[in-house]
């Protein structure tokens, strides 16, 4: 998948720009606070329909009524035109090939991968960060899974509400229990299936990045006692047993205490938990492996080479890892890489350089590499 064209109007600090990137590696460089991340954000929104920053409405240029994002994607042989309008009050309209559509049908769901310094939280943060990464980043490839997660979360909201308020009828509670077990089991079953495809990729990639002396392992930690995950019915039975044994505790604590919304994943390096024992460099390598494996998984499942958005991560990696990443991307994937410097390890893989200054974008051909400030000499 490729982004062929992007037009922005009143988006963040961009008044109006029109941008036709290369299908290979695009470097977005320039001093700080000039709009590099804003440009990646625009690409992300045009493909996914929402921002990776806090509120969508914040993207409207201060003092303007609305932002317009027009983009043109190329998938296999055909073109997808996306038109997104974000009003300053948060109202959003999405057109795909000229007709109004839902954000879930945008091309980015199986084709855009974002990698930024905050991703260290996948390892270091609370369990919810790891679940969200699996459910929304990795799981986004599968529309059925996405829908299921949404339904499951709503059921949990209903069930928690009953527990919080109390005074419900037993026959009513029984129904929400049944729905909780049924949907919860299906989420768990599909999640584990997804991870069975994903974990081995992460492990193998990590071995390439870090060498054979470090063995990475990932373990799924279920909040309920599960006897196996070979069938949904089996998981439902386990949930029923768990539910009975924890009923009193749930009523006392007024919330749902087990199920896939409470599960976690641990990362072990030579059998030691990285969260407690890993160095900063090791954590970065694991995150790099997670993203590279995501690329591979998406490619296998959708047949498309995903678009890579790398925000300020390049300079945080050492030369070996920069090399690994750039080799992985170059040749097949379109990439947008923001960086204040272009390290010499990657400069020969670069296809195009854009220089961003106060909301303007200027193309600097490969040949003028030497004219870009902050650029290391080859």
């Amino acid at each position: 998948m490729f982004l062929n064209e992007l037009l922005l109007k009143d988006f963040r600090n961009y008044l109006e720009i029109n941008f036709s990137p290369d299908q290979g590696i695009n470097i977005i460089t320039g001093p700080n606070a000039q709009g590099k991340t804003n440009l990646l954000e625009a690409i992300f929104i045009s493909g996914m329909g929402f921002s990776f920053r806090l509120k969508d409405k914040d993207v409207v240029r201060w003092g303007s009524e609305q932002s317009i994002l027009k983009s043109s994607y190329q998938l296999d042989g055909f073109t997808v035109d996306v038109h997104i309008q974000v009003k300053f009050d948060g109202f959003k309209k999405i057109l795909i090939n000229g007709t109004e559509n839902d954000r879930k049908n945008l091309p980015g769901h199986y084709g855009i991968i974002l990698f930024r310094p905050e991703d260290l939280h996948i390892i270091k943060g609370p369990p919810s960060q790891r679940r969200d990464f699996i459910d929304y980043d990795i799981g986004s490839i599968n529309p059925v899974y996405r829908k299921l997660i949404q339904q499951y979360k709503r059921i949990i909201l209903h069930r928690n509400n009953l527990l919080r308020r109390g005074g419900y009828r037993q026959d009513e509670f029984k129904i929400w229990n049944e729905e909780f077990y049924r949907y919860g089991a299906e989420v768990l079953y599909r999640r584990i299936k997804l991870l069975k495809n994903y974990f081995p990729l992460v492990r193998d990639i990590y071995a390439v990045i870090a060498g054979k002396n470090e063995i990475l392992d990932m373990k799924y930690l279920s909040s309920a006692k599960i006897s196996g995950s070979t069938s949904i019915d089996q998981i439902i039975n386990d949930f029923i047993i768990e539910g009975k044994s924890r009923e009193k505790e749930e009523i006392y604590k007024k919330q749902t205490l087990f199920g896939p919304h409470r599960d976690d994943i641990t990362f072990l390096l030579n059998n030691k938990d990285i969260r407690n024992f890993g160095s900063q460099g090791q954590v970065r390598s694991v995150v790099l492996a997670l993203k590279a494996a995501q690329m591979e998984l998406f490619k296998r499942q959708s047949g498309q080479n995903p678009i890579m958005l790398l925000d300020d991560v390049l300079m945080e990696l050492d030369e070996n890892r920069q090399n690994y990443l750039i080799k992985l991307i170059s040749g097949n994937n379109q990439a947008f890489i923001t960086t204040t410097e272009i390290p010499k390890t990657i400069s020969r893989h670069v296809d195009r350089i854009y220089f961003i200054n106060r909301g303007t974008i200027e193309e600097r051909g490969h040949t003028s590499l030497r004219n870009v400030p902050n650029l290391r000499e080859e």
Partner: protein
Amino acid sequence: MQYAGAVSRLIGELARLPGIGSKTAQRLAFFLLSEPPETAEKLASAIREARERVRRCSVCGNLTDLDPCRICTDEGRDKGIICLVQDPRDVAAVEKYRGFKGVYHVLHGVLSPLAGIGPEKLNIKNLLTRLEGGKVREVIVATNPDVEGDATALYLARLIKPLGVTVTRIAHGLPVGAHLEYADEITLGKAMEGRREI
């Protein structure tokens, strides 16, 4: 913006209507106030009259100016099949598809702990009374195919089946998440024909 007491009360009442935001409410209010008085009076009396005359049918719960309603008293309809819907708009939607010859029962909502709606707030007691007569063979549950509609269908199936009545669920023909109200006649027809026992 602040308006004189009566004007802001009118805007406030209009803004409580579904689908009407504060901007539209302002537009409607100023329209009514700038037209001749008859415009507002006609609207007010139409609202009052409708509200006084229209009530829930004591049998099926649908909105009607005649109790029992015309559908419940229609000799040509099969009283042995009840289509269970969540609100009166859905009766209109199913009626548009002329293939259904049974009668209705309107729940006036679906189970939703988030919205504070439990079974006691739904029109279920009347349904059980209707089923006790023993003449009903099948109940088709046509609540929307979302989390709340599904839970409600399950709840009712557990309640009704022990009475020896077949309970079926439509909506397998409807696109996922689509509401009955918006279904066209063809998809609704398929959904009715493709109903499954639950």
